[in-house]
């Protein structure tokens, strides 16, 4: 299992569209992927789960992955956060 702390950079935070992109990406990996924020842990493959976090810009969340492609999964997800979910140019 590997973990990484990730800051949310996009203005709108983990709103519906960003959450959809995130869960879509997470579903491409076989590893179990979780997001941890405020002592809440949700499955990154679950769109509604991500929405319950209500995490916004500037917040730090922990990305956690375990399983075969955990390295690739975490790198790809972290990249999506850093690209601000391709929302802002």
């Amino acid at each position: 299992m590997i973990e990484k702390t990730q800051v949310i950079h996009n203005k709108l935070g983990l709103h519906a569209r960003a959450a959809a992109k995130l869960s879509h990406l997470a579903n491409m990996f076989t590893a179990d992927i979780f997001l941890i924020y405020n002592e809440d842990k949700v499955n990154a493959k679950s769109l509604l789960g991500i929405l319950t976090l209500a995490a916004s810009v500037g917040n730090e969340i922990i990305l956690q992955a375990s399983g075969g492609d955990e390295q690739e999964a975490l790198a790809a997800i972290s990249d999506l956060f850093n690209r601000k979910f391709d929302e802002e140019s």
Partner: protein
Amino acid sequence: MPKKIKGIQLGQIKELSQLKIVSIFNEKWIHNLVSHPRPQRPGLGLTGYLKHLQAGRIQVFGKTEVGYLHNLKDEDRSRCLKNYFSLKLPGIIISENIKAESDWIAMAARYSTPILISELHTAPLISRLSAFLYQYFAKKIKMNGVLMDIMGQGVLITGDSGIGKSETALELVNKGYQLIADDVAEFYLDSNDDLIGRANEIIKNLMEVRGLGIININDIFGTSAVLEEKKLNLVTNLEKWDAKKKYDRLGEDTQYFKILGLELPLISLPVGPGRNLSTIIEVAVRNILAKKSGKKTYLELNKESALQQDELPDPQAEVSK
């Protein structure tokens, strides 16, 4: 992991409409933290026996406490209030709209204690306050899965992402059963040690169905298709069909799902071609209800076959002849 709750600000308690708070004194300290799930009546505490008064517990004054205070001589009352308020209690609620005297308010202010006045009688005030605090401080846990009410039973449908939990739940809603939460359900242990599940406010009534997106069950099926909260009775886990795994063929194994110190019946349902999961889950619930009333089909089957064997001639007897 269950979340730890440190406390609730008095301000949040003041806003609860069921407590019918009509006025407040020393509002400056409204951010005081109530850190104990049970309200307390000071009772003998006012006479100077302070041993069992605990910091962090919200205090409730009824006619008894107020009457006692009124009965005291001025100097005695002042000493008694000083001793009492010096415990730095988070706040006092006085019931039945009883007037708070100015010397009480002043002494409470010296020790930064707000006084709230409620219209309610003492008994309902305490019971509503206790019920709220109990739930607020209860152990809580989030679980992945869809929580539904099927024939009055709370059923949590779990399984890996993409296995078809939401689709199965949608079929169940279409059959007339109620959705409580899709994807993530939040549970707390109530005062009867029942596990009560509900949806996070943000995703209440919502369901995600791949291909359709996020849909609002309340808008599509109406209010009768959703429920606010439900006691959990059964967990059904959807899993990929595994030819090597031994599935329950007779219905005699009872597996249990352990959570917050409780054990709930767990049924593993393999997903495979030709298996209509919503019907299987529906029947699983009917079966649980039948088992609850003492019915065990596999035992009856045993009994029947035992009877038939009795009718057969005993092979040993044949030989001895």
